[in-house]
C-alpha cells in the first residue's frame, strides 16, 4: 500500500520534502510488469504535463517533452507533423519519463539502440528538490545512471530527444513463417541488419521438430511512393484505437490455458503466409498490436501473469533453445513469446540490452511449479552470461542482478552521490537491493555495501 499523488512540477519539491522515511518514487503509467512502479508504505508521484507543452525543433530534429506525457499522446501529436519516436516499446501506454527510466528498446534495437541512445538532455529533480540538466557531456555519470536507472536517481521532469523524420504513417512489412528455431535464428542473423525493424513471435507450445517455430515480422517506414493514391492523399494520417475491450467477467483462472493458447498459436502460425513482402500496416498495427485490445491482461484472470524477459549473448543459442524447451514442456501456457536480436548496448550501467538474443515470455503467476521453473530459468540465463530486464522483473534475486549487471556498483556509487539519504525508493529497489540504502546490512548483501555515512 502506498500513497499516490498526481502533481504539477512546481509542487513536487514540497511533496518530496514532506514524504515519510519509506521514500518517494516518480512513475509514469505504471505499465512495468513487476514492482518497478510501486513503493509500499511510501509515496508514489505521477507527473502532470500535457503534450501541447512539447517543443519540436524541426531543424535539429529533436523534441523536448514533459516526462509525464505518454508515447500515445506524443505519437498523435508528432506523426501528423512527419516525425516518429526514435524507439517505441510494444505498448504506447508508457510515458517519456518511463522510457528513460527503463531505457526501453524496440524492434529497431539491432540498428538504433535503446531510447537512451537518442536522448540529448534530461531535466532531473534531485532528492533535495533542486533541478539539474544532465546530458552526455554534462555530468555524464548522472546522465547515464538515470538512463535505465528505474527512477532511482531523481524525478525526470522533461526529456529532449532526437526524432525520426517519416514520409508516411504506414509501415511496409515483410512477414515470414519459420518452421523451427534454427531456421528462425539463421534468418534473423543473416537478414536483420538490412532492415530497421525486426521481431519474431515464437510458438512456445510447439515441440519436437517444430520447437521454436515462429513468425518473423520486419518493417520499414513506408515511403510516399509505396502508398496507394487514396492513402497518399493523407500520408501522415494517424489513428490509434482500441478495437475491443476484454470485459471484467473472466473466471479467476483466466481464459488462457494450455488448450486455448495452443489453439490460438496454431491459428496464428497457419494464418501467416510462408512469405509476404511489402504489405502496408499502420503504426499501431505494426508496433502496438496488444494495445488494440483494451484490458487484454484480463484474459489471464485475476491471478495474473508474469512477464519474463532476458537477454543471452550471441553464441548462447543452446541456452535459448533449452529455455524454450523447458517452458514448452512445463505446461505453463505462454501466450506471447517475443524474440528479438539486440545490437550494441549503450553507456548506461543498468541499461538492459546487450548484444544477443532477448526472449520475452508470459507466464501465469499461479501455475503449478512456477517458482521452480523461474529459478531454473534464472540459472540457465545467468550461466550463459545473460541478464534480466529490470522493467519487467518480478521474481528474480539480488544475486541474479549482481551477476547479470557487473556494473551495478558503479551505478550505486553515482546513485548514492545524488541521493545520500536514500530518498528514492521502490519495491523493485528493496527487493533486489539495488541502491546502497536498500542493500542493508545483511551479510549476503555485504559485498555491495557502499560508503553511506
Amino acid at each position: 500500500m502506498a500513497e499516490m499523488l498526481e502533481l504539477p512540477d512546481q509542487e513536487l519539491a514540497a511533496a518530496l520534502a514532506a514524504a515519510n522515511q519509506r521514500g518517494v518514487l516518480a512513475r509514469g503509467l505504471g505499465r512495468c510488469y513487476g514492482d518497478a512502479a510501486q513503493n509500499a508504505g511510501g509515496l508514489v508521484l505521477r507527473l502532470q504535463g500535457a503534450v501541447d507543452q512539447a517543443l519540436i525543433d524541426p531543424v535539429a530534429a529533436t523534441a523536448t517533452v514533459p516526462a509525464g506525457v505518454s508515447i500515445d499522446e506524443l505519437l498523435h501529436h508528432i506523426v501528423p507533423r512527419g516525425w516518429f519516436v526514435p524507439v517505441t516499446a510494444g505498448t504506447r501506454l508508457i510515458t517519456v519519463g518511463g522510457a528513460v527510466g527503463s531505457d526501453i528498446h524496440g524492434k529497431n534495437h539491432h540498428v538504433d539502440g535503446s531510447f537512451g541512445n537518442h536522448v540529448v538532455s534530461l531535466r532531473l529533480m534531485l532528492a533535495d528538490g533542486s533541478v539539474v540538466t544532465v546530458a552526455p557531456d554534462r555530468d555524464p555519470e548522472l546522465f547515464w545512471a538515470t538512463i535505465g536507472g528505474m527512477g532511482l536517481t531523481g524525478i525526470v521532469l522533461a526529456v529532449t530527444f532526437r526524432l525520426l523524420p517519416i514520409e508516411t504513417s504506414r509501415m511496409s512489412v515483410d512477414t515470414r513463417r519459420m518452421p523451427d528455431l534454427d531456421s528462425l535464428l539463421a534468418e534473423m542473423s543473416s537478414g536483420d541488419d538490412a532492415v530497421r525493424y525486426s521481431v519474431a513471435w515464437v510458438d512456445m507450445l510447439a515441440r519436437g521438430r517444430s520447437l521454436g517455430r515462429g513468425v518473423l515480422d520486419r518493417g520499414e517506414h513506408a515511403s510516399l511512393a509505396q502508398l496507394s493514391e487514396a492513402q497518399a492523399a493523407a500520408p501522415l494520417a494517424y489513428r490509434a484505437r482500441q478495437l475491443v475491450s476484454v470485459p471484467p467477467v473472466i473466471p479467476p483462472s483466466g481464459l488462457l490455458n494450455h488448450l486455448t493458447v495452443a489453439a490460438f498459436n496454431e491459428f496464428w502460425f497457419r494464418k501467416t503466409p510462408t512469405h509476404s513482402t511489402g504489405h502496408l500496416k499502420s503504426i499501431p498495427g505494426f508496433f502496438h498490436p496488444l494495445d488494440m485490445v483494451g484490458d487484454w491482461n484480463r484474459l489471464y484472470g485475476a491471478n495474473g501473469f508474469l512477464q519474463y524477459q532476458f537477454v543471452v549473448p550471441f553464441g548462447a543459442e543452446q541456452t535459448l533453445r533449452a529455455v524454450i524447451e523447458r517452458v514448452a514442456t512445463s505446461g505453463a501456457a505462454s501466450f506471447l513469446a517475443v524474440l528479438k536480436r539486440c545490437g550494441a548496448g549503450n553507456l548506461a550501467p543498468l541499461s538492459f540490452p546487450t548484444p544477443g538474443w532477448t526472449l520475452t515470455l508470459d507466464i501465469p503467476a499461479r501455475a503449478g511449479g512456477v517458482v521452480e521453473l523461474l529459478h531454473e530459468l534464472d540459472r540457465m540465463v545467468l550461466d550463459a552470461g545473460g541478464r534480466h530486464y529490470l522493467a519487467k522483473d518480478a521474481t528474480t534475486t539480488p544475486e541474479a542482478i549482481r551477476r547479470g549487471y557487473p556494473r551495478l556498483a558503479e551505478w550505486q556509487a553515482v546513485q548514492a552521490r545524488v541521493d545520500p539519504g536514500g530518498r528514492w525508493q521502490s519495491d523493485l529497489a528493496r527487493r533486489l537491493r539495488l541502491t546502497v540504502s536498500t542493500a542493508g546490512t545483511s551479510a549476503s548483501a555485504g559485498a555491495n555495501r557502499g560508503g553511506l555515512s
Partner: protein
Amino acid sequence: MNNAVGEVQTILLLGGTSDIGTAIVARAVQPYTRTVVLACRDTAKGEHSAAALRRDGLTVEVVAFDGADTAGHQALIDGVATRHGDIDLAVVAFAALGDPDITRQDAQAAAALTQVDFVGAVSSIVAVGNRLREQGHGSIVVLSSVAGERVRAANPAYGASKAGLDGFCQGYGDWLAEQGARMLVVRPGFVHSAMTDGMKPAPFATTPDKVAEVTVKALRGRRRTVWAPPVLQLVFSALRHLPGPVWRRLPLS
C-alpha cells in the same frame, strides 16, 4: 520484499524454538528467501533450530527474545528491520502450556503464564504490526489454538490466553488489512510436539509439519483464519454449542 510469485525474502519467527514455528518457517523458506531470524528465550536451543534451516544463500540469525518482556518488543522488531530490511513474514509462535495443577491454584503462576501467552503475544503482534504498516506490506501468522475456542477445566489459564489472543487477532487483523498488511490466525488442535510431550493426545491430533502445511497453503490464498487439521472447524462448530453438562463429560483427554 515479496516477489510476484509470493516468495518471501525475510522471515521472523518469534518463538524460535517452537516445533510448530520452525516447521512453518521450514516450509515457508523458498529458493528466493535470504534471511530467517529466530527470536527465542533459549538462544542455545535456537542455534539448534538454526542449524537445521541453514543452507547456501540463507542467513539464519538467532536473537534473544523474551515474550514476557513487553518493554523490549518494539526495539527488537525495529532492530530486525534495520539489519535485514522489510519483514515479509512474521510468525508468532511462542507460548507456554504451564502446569495446570499449578496455574489453577497459584495466582502468581497463573498471571505469569497469561503474561507470556496473552500479554506478550499481543505486545509483540502490535510491534510487528507497526513495522508492517510502515512497510505497507507483509504478513503475520499467529498461532492460536482450539483450546481457546471453548476453554476447558483441563488448562484454563492457557485456554483463556489463547481465547483472548484469538479475539485480539480477529479485530486487529481486520484493522491491519486496511493498512496493507495481512494477518493469518492458525488454530491447531492437539499437536504432537515438545510442548505436549507425555500428554495423552486428543482426537484429531496432528503434527507440526501438518500444521505448517496448512499454514503455508493458506498464506497463498486469502483466508484470515485456518484450522489444523481443517476438519476441526466443523468439529468445533458443533462442540461450541454443546450444552455445558454434555461438554464437561466429553473425553477430550
